[in-house]
């Protein structure tokens, strides 16, 4: 895109005579550089020609793709979400499936080379557990005589994929009666990996659910505030300032304390979403308002007003499409806040509770320092939370650069 205003090379260098080539190092080198320069220039020019008639959306996409980290993050995030959606296929076990005598079992160790030095496909050894009579802890010993191969697409417990397609194959698993704990097991001998992936359903989708509610509130209130201005604007802005300036965690805690304990998992999910959105809409409302204020004096808005369009029509049909790209950015950046909010609440025992799982409720097991010191794999959900949040932030960052293709 920037080819046009690149400083032109002096004419002489562009038309260097081929006879001079190869006579000295400097000549060769300059020829090389020239070639490279032409190569990149042509490529750039081609790209610029392609983009000359591109739509706003294509420009954004091209700009977004330039942000390497953001692109990679997007792919990783899509994988995370796919894993959450197809959780029942991806994981080897159910969330509540218990393996007796495997409480706090270490992550299964994958082997390739067996005791005799022969190389196999990945396999695990059988483990036998013994109860230590003094400490009442299970200790595990690997039994090298018995090998259990780890396979893809093994047949396991039957389930309904997406609740409709009956299946019994799982992405990976172990043949035989030995449990395979990729990330270890919790206190009751349940596979932590399976639980984390199932938990990501709640944790990842609460972000979306929360953002949708915040989004609706934010657009309506921010739109009204920005379009009408005056007293309405002042009142709404004061309320936003107020909500932003009080610490949100105690408010979240106090609000979620009111969620009845006997509610079902899905009801709790929506209640928590509401609690989180109570604070979350303010940021979006600010973005919408700020943009609308700058747009409402544009000629096309005045034209719409003269043609006696109603305020709501002007806001939704003419003004909001102009701020879509900014909304996408702020939504992307608002989702991680929601995810963290849910994690915090569930971690404290105020959000999702057993038998439902979320990353936060899984981390409740990691509250006790003794548990972490002895069974550090209980911290695994932390890394999933961090991963999801960092990915969202990187994508948001890339989108922010992309949303304004003319900014540089």
């Amino acid at each position, binding site marked *: 895109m920037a080819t046009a205003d690149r400083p032109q090379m002096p004419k002489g260098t562009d038309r260097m005579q081929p006879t001079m080539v190869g006579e000295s190092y400097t000549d060769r080198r300059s020829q090389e550089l020239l070639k490279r320069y032409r190569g990149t220039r042509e490529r750039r020019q081609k790209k610029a020609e392609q983009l000359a008639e591109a739509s706003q959306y294509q420009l954004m996409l091209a700009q977004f793709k330039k942000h390497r980290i953001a692109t990679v993050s997007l792919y990783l995030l899509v994988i995370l979400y796919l894993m959450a959606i197809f959780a029942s296929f991806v994981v080897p076990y159910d969330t509540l499936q218990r393996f007796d005598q495997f409480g706090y079992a270490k992550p299964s160790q994958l082997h390739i080379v067996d005791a005799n030095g022969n190389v196999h496909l990945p396999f695990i050894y059988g483990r036998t557990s013994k109860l230590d009579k003094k400490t009442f802890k299970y200790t595990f010993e690997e039994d090298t005589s018995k090998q259990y191969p780890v396979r893809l697409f093994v047949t396991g417990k039957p389930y309904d994929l997406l609740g409709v397609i009956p299946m019994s194959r799982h992405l990976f698993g172990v043949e035989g009666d030995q449990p395979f704990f990729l990330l270890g097991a919790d206190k009751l001998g349940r596979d932590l990996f399976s639980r984390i992936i199932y938990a990501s359903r709640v944790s990842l989708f609460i972000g979306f659910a929360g953002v949708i509610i915040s989004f609706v509130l934010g657009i309506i209130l921010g739109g009204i505030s920005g379009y009408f201005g005056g007293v309405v604007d002042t009142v709404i802005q004061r309320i936003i300032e*107020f909500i932003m300036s*009080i610490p949100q*965690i*105690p408010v979240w805690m106090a*609000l979620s*304390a009111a969620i009845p304990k006997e509610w079902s998992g899905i009801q709790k999910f929506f209640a928590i979403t509401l609690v989180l959105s109570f604070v979350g809409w303010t940021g979006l409302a600010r973005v919408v308002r700020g943009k609308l204020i700058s747009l409402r004096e544009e000629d096309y808005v005045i034209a719409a007003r003269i043609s006696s369009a109603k305020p709501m029509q002007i806001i939704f049909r003419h003004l909001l499409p102009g701020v879509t790209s900014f909304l996408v950015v702020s939504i992307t950046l608002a989702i991680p806040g929601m995810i963290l909010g849910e994690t915090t609440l569930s971690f404290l025992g105020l959000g999702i509770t057993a038998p439902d799982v979320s990353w936060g409720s899984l981390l409740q097991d990691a*509250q006790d320092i003794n548990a972490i010191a002895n069974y550090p794999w209980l911290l695994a959900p932390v890394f999933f939370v*961090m991963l999801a949040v960092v990915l969202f932030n990187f994508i948001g960052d890339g989108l922010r650069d992309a949303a304004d293709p003319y900014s540089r």
Partner: protein
Amino acid sequence: MGHFILRRLLMLVPFLFLVSALAFIVIQLPPGSFIDTYRRNLEAQGGTVNEAQLKALEVRYGLDKPVIVQYAIWTWNILSRGDFGNSFRYQRPVADILWERVPRTVGISLLAIVFTWIIAIPLGIISAIKQYSIWDYVLTFLSFIGLSVPAFLLAIVLMYVVFTQTGWLVTGLYSPQFQNAPMSVAKFVDLLKNIWLPLLVLAVTGAAGTIRVLRATLLDELQKPYVTTARAKGLPEWRVILKYPVRLAINPMISTIGWLLPAVVGGELVVSKVLNLPTVGPIILEATLAQDMFLAGAFVLILSALTLIGTLISDICLAWLDPRIRYGCAAHAQ
């Protein structure tokens, strides 16, 4: 200046009113009146329910009257006598518990903000003057992580790392042997041994955003002609940077208290639960879990009010430092 302070103080009044309304809503939220909760709690603990006492409570809080009147009674009790009601769980006046716990939370939060600056100011300056260097990228990456990771997760991980590396468990404010001892040098040293972790955790999460703000403002300032002038006059580079652009770029840091303070106070609650600090955190959590709403509501009220006042003080400081804000138009204050 006096005019500015007066205006801000007047703006505080409706905010405090909103805070009290929010706290009262929190108290009212659980189904049934709190007398019912009280009765349930007493019965659950196996205590006998004294009907006359319940009746007295009902009259005291005007439970037979409409909600607005109840709200009026509740606020009047607070304003006139500092009476926040009674905690069902602890069987003590809420005000006593507040008095015991809130100063610690305030202290830790303020210290954490000071720590945040101690970390953020040098790093922000480095990030700006060495723009696009390896340091800048490392710091940018770290501040991304710091922005993404909530304090309590960092606290768990750090506690685990310290414990496995040194076998030393950082928890609580004092070691057991100092728990009830009077203040002494030894006790103070013990306090320092334990308090660095929560402070560090809170400061790191707060510093991330502050570094970004400082870097951005400093980059703006560094391009201005007065910097070139200072250089042309032959000032040493460190003086050029520290004396003029940094001084200007520090100003917005004061206004970041506005969003730093709520975040730190909130973060402190959860961190203190993880690290077992005797501050507001564990109590407010227990109160909400047991639906001891007078206590929970009072904490929401006090923490929010203190945060609002803290923000107000920071605004006044900023106006005092920066005349553009004092006389500025509304558009500039954006």
